[in-house]
């Protein structure tokens, strides 16, 4: 099936099998930050944005995306670098396999609620599993990032 879509700001016309998931399409195109961690849409490792919304790329069929806009971590390099630096400062990018998906979810959280409460952070990021870091350090990093970006006057207290 032929689909026209935008990935990271660039137009693509792709001929994909009707059952191909976005995750596969993106990896085939060389967007290696998008990864698979499960077969059941449970791990969040494959998170990308479709039309600005955080989406599990393993649960979207590419052929449904005609006319839509997809963003992977490769498309938000600057943000990846900025948020990534906070994660690295905290040492929570252990194996790093979950980091791109997490950063895509953080970006979506930030877009929806720039000054989230702890509960909102959990709500937006709960689907991003990490087996290495134990989550606590990620939370420290995310709070610091949001605080530096949006000021200490925000609701979240460290």
């Amino acid at each position, binding site marked *: 099936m032929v689909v026209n879509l935008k990935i990271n700001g660039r137009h693509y016309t792709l001929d994909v099998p009707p059952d191909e998931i976005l995750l596969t399409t993106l990896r085939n195109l060389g967007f290696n930050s998008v*990864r698979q961690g499960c077969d059941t849409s449970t791990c969040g490792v494959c998170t990308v944005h479709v039309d600005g919304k955080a989406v599990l790329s393993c649960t979207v069929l590419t052929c449904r995306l005609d006319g839509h806009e997809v963003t992977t971590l490769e498309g938000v390099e600057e943000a990846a*670098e900025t948020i990534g630096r906070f994660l690295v400062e905290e*040492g929570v990018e252990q*194996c*790093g396999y979950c980091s791109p998906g997490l950063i895509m979810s953080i970006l979506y959280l930030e877009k929806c609620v720039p000054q989230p409460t702890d509960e909102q952070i959990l709500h937006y990021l709960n689907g991003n599993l990490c087996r290495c870091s134990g989550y606590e350090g990620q939370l420290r990093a995310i709070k610091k990032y949001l605080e530096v970006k949006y000021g200490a006057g925000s609701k979240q207290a460290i």
Partner: protein
Amino acid sequence: MRVVNKPFNKIDGMSLVKGKPLYTDDLCPPSALVVKVLRSPHAFARIKRIDTSEAEKLPGVECIFTYQNIHRKPFTRAGQCHPELSPYDKFLLDEYVRHVGDDVAIVAAVDEKTALNALKLIKVEYEVLKPVLDFETAEENPVLVHPEDDIFAHLPVGFDPKHNVACRVNFALGEVEKVLEECEVVISRTYKTQPQAQAMMETQRAFSYLDPYGRLVVVASTQIPFHARRILANALDIPASQIRVIKPRIGGGFGAKQTVNAEFYPALVTLKTGKPAKIVYTRSEVFNATTTRHAMKFTVTIGAMRDGKIRAIDVKALSNTGAYGEHAETTLGAAGKKVLPLYNKVEAVRFSGTAVYTNMVPGGALRGFGVTQGTYALESAVNELAAELNMDPTLIRDINMIKKGETTPLINMTTKGAGPDPMYMDSCMLDYCVKRGKELIKWEEKYPKYQVSRTKVRGLGMAIAQQGSGLPNIDMAAATIKLNDDGFFNLLVGATDLGTGAETILAQIAAETLGVDLEQIVVYSSDTDATPFDTGAYASSTTYTTGNAVIEAAVKMKEEIIKTGALYFNTQPEKIIFDGKYIICSATDEKISLADFSKKITYNLLHTQLSTTGSFVPKKQAPPYMAGFAEVEVDLETGKVEVVEFVGIVDCGTPINPKLARIQAEGGIVTGIGLALYEEVRYASNGKLVTDNFMDYKIPTRRDIGKITVEFAPGYEDTGPYGAKSIGEVVVNTVAPAIMDAIYNACGVRIRELPATPEKIWRALNC
């Protein structure tokens, strides 16, 4: 110290967070054949007939292997030193399939779809056999998981497949029965631990190709590149010289990748076709066809006096090694050897363990490696003893646990190659850990419990644990340092960074020893052609074992620089000083920068390459210790437990990188919380997994963990690199027993079978 004990960022950190193509599947050539494995739907069966003719006709299918067209040679997939303690009880493919998910046939095709379609076209007729699914009765079960006669054990481990026994571990000190008789209080309790999945986010995967010399190159997500080379050579029946194993970045391991598993399949295909081939496991394949933490059952008998003095401990252990004996002996042994020395003042101690075969997913390595299971049992029993004696659990620890400078003959008895001289635990900070943990969790204020509402009660509990730092006289690591023509160094290590930051801390150790900046150390690791030997990332060994090898290599490099500096300045080495930046001739006060010196000796004078190698094998036990304290909230109406806080005080000697050590501890504690409350690999009555995905198998999410507080004890281990011991595994061990005691203190329910699900607690409260 300039570089060590400092919170440097991981040297590969920014590449990881930016999602760079660094992992196995990112590096595989797109032309690689896709390999898929047909897996058994039965827990136990004999293949009567297997017909691949239809599948072979499918366009795009490159080759198919079944047990009929593959050589038969027993081996073990367990990554451990040679000769392995694990029995040689696995074949590349066999007539028998021994668990649901066991391999039946291997297909390589031009793409995934074709490979999957080919699997469907393979016709297999099975003679379905009655499986062995209850490990508690496996030894008496007349059904044999391994009826074949050509399997064997290299070492006398009690291998007895005619009784479904993979191995036995027995050791004793003193006369247990006699001392127990003299005790005023004797308690005996049985505990069970469940199989736990490693659940690293990147599944097992590998690809292979032939290098220009026709040698097999296997790029794999592995923890053990050097063992993998040896194991592959043995299984594939080709010389090790014809194999190169490379580990790129890997998406976690936790022991799962200490067993060679996916690597065989593409390797076979490449050898047969000469073409690149790859396999990527699905999550369901990981659950069904790799390994889990060994389920174990312990009966712990403790004899003590009314004043709290423990005099005897007797542990009977049974371990379920599943269909293959991978890591069976070592995990079972660790459940005793690295647990019982915690109580060094006993007069008698005994451990009798057996690991049995069943038709279930094989047991394997998982962070904590048997010690986690053993610690849960022993620490729970000690907590029950404290309750029986009406004694504070921290007091009973204070009376009985091992302290700084102490030892027990048990340590010598269970350490390979230990001489008669007692090994004193000079760096043990358990005492501090317990005291500090009590302060942080507010033990005096809150213990044992307090009510927060009509239906919610909070309880506190604690436990202590140890692990090892590498395996004395067994596990060896080496490091090579090379000076380059611009004054920077290559650090080549066979060690395997699983994401923990091993490469960063090894670079820190090298920089510290050489007196240079961290940026001057360029690390290359885990490539069997290019890096020196290392047993790999397991047994909590990299910091301690490889760290010491790095120091040796760096010390030698300094000597080389000084010797070569003497030639350069035409003087004696005693007159040369190397301060990390300059080579200084003290006689003449002349100096040359390291960068200029290295250029000169490469291009203009002397024309020499400086390169040094250090090797290290631990000689002594240098266990890290930890005290863990849990505060939980139990909902009396539903039985649900929430962790309010977990405090872990870790004695890992000097943390080489306190930041990375802290994350190791936090991550390990969360894996422990998963073990305590949520995770369990479960089977249907026919031996099929009912938890082969992340929906049915629950690992903790960020909502499930409560607050985690970690601190380090100010310890120093003389035999460690800059005082360091290990940290990777010890951090898992205290969590389950501490949480179970906290639950008991909150609501009076003793969970002796992990995990503590709401259902179990509700039933205990209401039935």
